């Protein structure tokens, strides 16, 4: 019996494993080999031709520094919110929670566009100030500053802190702090001696995850930071696409991989080392806002979160339907007001170029890629999650789990680079094939899909299957008639995850996409890098569409969540 079970587990795992092997580890190996052979063959040239060591160190230093600062700020913004969401029950809380999750799934380019429309040189605040004081130049310098990068990162990742720390906090027995109080600890002492030590594992886990996302952040730095700021990820992109210096790109990719793998390992170690803490249902731990102190805190925190998280999104949506600048070739603005021109322009091919696809076609291309990604990642993720929930021993389980998580840490640009280096020659010459993109998207989506499905499968009581078994159902019937219906919500939310990730994915797509098949983010990036108010407006229109789709997806996922504790 156990031999058969083991065999089954291996069979179920083999499909996702083969996929990972061919489309992840093989390209990684190629990158490694590529950078190593170049290093040994042209030892002398390497120093000058690839990248001088001080430059690499400077990039690494900046990458770490900005990630560190961003993480710190994210914790600063997130922890009061985590306290509020963890400990209090109030009207509108569910909506606030759902909304905080929206930026996380927002494509980096859309976030960049959001902040640009709010604080950029052509953004609301600058235009308003110029109008008000009759200025000729935008007074606030936000785009292409370090502050812009940090702000966008905080915007992006605060939800991780809210989710991980807030969830943990909401289940942390409130008796601990009451016990401390009765023993003579005041508020501050209770926080310092009891709450913080108990929260530390979840805070550290959240911080590590945030740091990892900030470390490999791509779109934000490329678009909001501008050419002055180069992290490893951005430099890999420039070296690959701009200079076609593949050895340099490969070397940087290996360096970044080493860093993210260390972080992944740390994260896994940390989540294993969590102390057993008595956990309580949220309803037991959460109080209503009754004292003036708690009310004031709630009002301040909620207002801040609302302004910070809604204003950039609102700025984008409004800006995409506003005419605020003169048309091309005209000196003055003829009629300021509401316009749908930017949306109408999306489907026009003004350049009549063969390679140029009208932005609207990017929508259908993106939808096609997203559908393939959903199908592929479910086909691979379902057996993987099933094996993880049912068959594998904890040890094997952990190994497979971290294997699956690796693409998340490897960074999208590296994935793209690996694809370019690997699939340009037989046996797998896929360079010209648009199939590469959904494959890359599946790699990125797979960890999220497995992580949505496995807890749901694990929560099904074995007795249910045993009952079905006794009544004559074989393993297949048990799966299709008992388990599948029970996890259909989880499957739906996994599908939405895959769909939204594919729609917004930019890093890998930017490298491997063919000019004639642009996805929405690629089209946005192209439009943003071209001058003129019309292009800018079209970029905003596309971003707005993407924003609404991602927001809808994220809110749907939150609605479907059945497990109480957060998993990323």
């Amino acid at each position, binding site marked *: 019996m156990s031999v058969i079970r083991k065999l089954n587990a291996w069979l179920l795992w083999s499909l996702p494993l083969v996929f990972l092997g061919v489309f992840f580890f093989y390209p990684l190996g190629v990158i490694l080999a590529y950078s190593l052979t170049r290093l040994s063959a042209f030892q002398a040239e390497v120093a000058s031709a690839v990248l001088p060591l001080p430059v690499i160190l400077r990039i690494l230093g900046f990458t770490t520094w900005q990630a560190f600062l961003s993480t710190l700020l994210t914790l600063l913004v997130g922890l009061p919110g985590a306290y509020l969401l963890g400990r209090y029950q109030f009207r509108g809380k569910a909506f606030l929670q759902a909304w905080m999750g929206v930026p996380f799934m927002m494509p980096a380019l859309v976030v960049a566009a959001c902040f640009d429309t709010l604080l950029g040189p052509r953004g609301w605040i600058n235009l308003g100030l110029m109008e008000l004081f009759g200025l000729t130049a935008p007074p606030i310098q936000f785009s292409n500053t370090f502050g812009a990068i940090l702000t966008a990162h905080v915007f992006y990742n605060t939800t991780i802190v809210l989710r991980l720390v807030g969830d943990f906090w909401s289940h942390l027995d409130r*008796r601990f702090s*009451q*016990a*401390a109080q*009765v023993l*003579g600890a005041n508020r501050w*002492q209770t926080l310092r001696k009891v709450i913080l*030590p108990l929260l530390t594992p979840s805070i550290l886990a959240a911080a590590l995850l945030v740091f990892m996302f900030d470390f490999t952040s791509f779109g934000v730095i490329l678009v909001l930071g501008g050419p002055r700021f180069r992290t490893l990820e951005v430099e890999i992109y420039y070296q690959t696409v701009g200079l076609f210096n593949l050895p340099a790109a490969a070397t940087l990719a290996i360096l970044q991989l080493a860093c993210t793998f260390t972080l992944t390992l740390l994260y896994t170690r940390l989540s294993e080392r969590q*102390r057993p803490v008595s956990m309580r249902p949220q309803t037991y731990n959460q109080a209503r806002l009754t004292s003036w102190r708690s009310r004031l805190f709630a009002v301040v925190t909620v207002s801040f979160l609302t302004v910070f998280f809604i204003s950039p999104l609102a700025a984008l949506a409004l800006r995409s339907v506003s005419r605020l600048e003169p048309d091309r070739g005209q000196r003055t603005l003829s009629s300021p007001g509401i316009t749908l021109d930017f949306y109408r322009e999306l489907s026009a091919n003004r350049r009549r170029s063969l390679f140029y696809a009208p932005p609207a076609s990017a929508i259908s291309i993106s939808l096609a890629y997203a559908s393939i990604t959903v199908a592929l990642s479910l086909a691979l993720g379902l057996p993987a999650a099933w094996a993880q929930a049912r068959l594998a021993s904890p040890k094997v389980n952990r190994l497979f789990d971290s294997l699956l998580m690796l693409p998340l840490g490897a960074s999208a640009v590296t994935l793209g680079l690996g694809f370019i280096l690997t699939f340009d020659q037989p046996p797998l010459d896929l360079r010209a094939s648009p199939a590469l993109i959904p494959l890359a998207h599946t790699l990125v989506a797979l960890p999220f899909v497995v992580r949505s499905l496995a807890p749901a499968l694990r929560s099904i009581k074995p007795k249910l299957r045993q009952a079905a078994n006794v009544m004559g159902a074989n393993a297949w019937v048990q799966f299709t008639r008992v388990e599948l219906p029970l996890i259909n919500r989880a499957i739906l939310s996994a599908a939405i995850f895959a769909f939204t990730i594919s729609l917004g994915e930019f890093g890998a797509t930017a490298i491997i996409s063919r000019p004639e098949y642009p996805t929405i983010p690629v089209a946005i990036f192209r439009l943003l890098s071209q001058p003129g108010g019309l292009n800018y407006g079209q970029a905003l229109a596309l971003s707005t569409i993407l924003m609404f789709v991602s927001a809808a997806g994220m809110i749907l996922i939150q609605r479907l969540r059945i497990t109480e504790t957060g998993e990323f």
Partner: protein
Amino acid sequence: MPALAVTNLHKSFGATAALNGVSFTVFHSEILAVLGPSGCGKSTLLNIIAGLEKPDRGEVLWEGKSIQGIPPHRREFGLMFQDLALFPHLNVYDNIAFGLNLKNLPAADIKERVQEMLALVHLEGYEKRDVNTLSGGEAQRVALARCLAPKPRFLMLDEPLGALDRNLRELLWLELRQILKEIRQTTLYVTHDQQEAFGLADRIAVMNAGKIEQIDVPLALNRRPANRFVAQFLGLPNFLQGTATRSGKQTLVETAIGIFPLSTTASGKVTVLMRPDALRLDGSGSFRFSGKIIERVFQGAVCKVVIEVNFTPLTFHVLPSSPLPEDGSLLLFSVNPDEAFQILPS
């Protein structure tokens, strides 16, 4: 002067009233048990006395002075929670020393006091143990040591033995009483287990639906339950509906099992409690009734017999060695009415 007094406490959560006018006092060195079914407001009461919650109405007084405005950490009370709430990030020593550390005592004093506490609860040598690896009984002792260490002027225990199994509980409540009496600790002990309350407390307050039904010493509580709820909650099984009528110097009570005289001033419709230990098998009682034994359960020290009298099942406790006839046959039993019956206010 009493140590602690609560007067007319009210507390509601939404539409449900957790406390509905609770008043009582606890004297110095006394152990008062609050006994009641789960959900009767016991934990709310403790939270209010500890200062963790505010009452809607009423006051908590310490030695005659209101302590309403004093936050929990300045009340110098101790509270042992039902689920203990030992700090999982601290070892046994640091858990016990937690309250002492907050008082900024010299390190040597803290160490000495922790050792003293460990000796008191018989856990010498446990200092470095991880609290997550303790057994139920050990964790319970550490929690007790933790709330006793800062020498609280008033100790509250919220179902401290609730999570343990029967045998261990009996062992521990005797030990707990010994410890508390040894240090003359003023204590409020909350439980739903009447045996525990009887074994531990100097006085018992029976609580139901946010109200105190009766406060008395254990024996008096058992002998003279104030009402049907108290009697039922203490495990007294037999209640009869009857009518009391004054007849000359005595009162006659008519019930399903017959008419008997009772020295009482009650009249009209009454509820009569029939004590389970009053059955006289030798026929020496003055009130006789016929019935048949329909069930007998051997319970160790006593044997429980259920006798059906005029379609009314009545439960009695007799010695297991008592000569009992076969089940099913109609027999004559007797009791002395003033010993066996008690009128309960309805």
